[in-house]
């Protein structure tokens, strides 16, 4: 199903700049940001946090059967990235040979097209990752 326009727009700043939150009570980072710290609950104090965009590959796969709207991108590398600050996030690894990806490799955030409705539709941009230099 095509995600609604406001849904794609609403977290633009966070998606473009990898902005999440940090709990000042326990020091845990969250991406996407949370309104409630699951560890501290009522005692939590969440503030906005801009991630450095650097991290390491925690796990990865090569998606060869894509959902609607991603067909043109196959095969693409999908990974869970362990950000340096401690939060984990799902994102693609771009411009890489899938055979050379390994768990533990250093990556950094890049700004790419995430999704396109159709040639006349909205383009959604956001973070992906590439292997660090």
């Amino acid at each position, binding site marked *: 199903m095509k995600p609604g326009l406001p849904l794609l727009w609403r977290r633009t700043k966070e998606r473009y700049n990898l902005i999440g939150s940090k709990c000042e009570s326990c020091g845990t980072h969250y991406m996407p940001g949370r309104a409630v710290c699951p560890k501290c609950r009522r005692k939590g104090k969440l503030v906005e946090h801009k991630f450095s965009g650097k991290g390491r590959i925690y796990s990865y796969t090569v998606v060869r059967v894509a959902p609607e709207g991603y067909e043109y991108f196959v095969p693409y590398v999908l990974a869970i990235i362990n950000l340096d600050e401690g939060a984990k996030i799902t994102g693609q690894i*771009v411009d890489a040979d899938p055979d050379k990806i390994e768990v533990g490799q250093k990556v950094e955030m890049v*700004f*790419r*097209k995430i999704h396109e409705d159709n040639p006349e539709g909205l383009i959604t941009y956001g973070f992906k990752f590439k292997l660090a230099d």
Partner: protein
Amino acid sequence: MSCVGIAGYGVSIPSYRIKAGEIARVWGEEEGRIVKGLGLSEKSVPGLDEDAATLAVDAARRAVSHAGIDPYDIKSMFIGSESHPYAVKPTATIVAEAIGATPNLFAADYEFACKAGTAGVINTYALIKSGEIDYGMGIGADTSQGRPGDALEYSAGAGAAAFLLGRKDVIANIEGIYSYATDTPDFWRREHAIYPSHGGRFTGPPGYFKHVIGGAKGIMEKMGTKPRDYAYAVFHQPNGKFPRTVAKKLGFTAEQIEPGLITPYIGNTYSAATLIGLAAVLDAAKPGDAILVASFGSGAGSDAFHIEASDLIDERRNAYPVRRIIENKRYIDYGTYAKHRRKLVL
């Protein structure tokens, strides 16, 4: 002090390359003749998820990091491109959002074929010069398309260059600007057309050469300078041949123009081409070096600049020099290139 200069710059070039020989193979052309005729042997190709906006963001982030300023202090954002992702909806707001410069800024897109990037830089210069703002950014970014089999297909590349201008702590001063424009139909693309049309050999003398010479002579006349007064000269580079020819006609030497000649390695990056050349020159320039810049945009016009490297240039080198960026490359075949450029209909 109303002197305006370059506080930082950034360049982004996709990592994919296709060799001219690979394109020639598909169309039954002779590689040697193409390489010699155009003065380039390969070009950059955007990834499937790259467009003028993503390249502009990458370049802009590098420029902000080079300048070391708070992006929120950037109060204008101009992006020139002939391949804006949207016909209607600005690229400038995407980039401004992605570098954290929103919402208190002036943002707009430009289109003037290959000189839309320098048009953005000139307008940034003007806003700062007038005292209206302290920092502004001008970007040239393109992922241009050439019609399959056309001569342009060998050269239409992809890249972006962002120039962050300001008054304080600049690495180079913009000492003067000059522009030259006439109505000349050398190259165009109509609304809804995928590929541009051009006048073939007409693009040469009445188009590129007349305007680049007009711009370059104009800025030298305005500044009272001669070619020998410049350490470097950067001309728009639609291929590897035209800028070398125009340099000769104007009296510049190979030593002055080769450092800023990047098209032979990445193709014509359109709105970014002149600015990437300038970035490559700034990577190497010494304090006090004078640089002449003359862009060209079909339709037609040229924006010229007289720039002088400041004393800060040595201690504030860019972390992503152009010649290192262009070395990060992987070759693709024509089939993959056709997929990347969405020439395949799914």
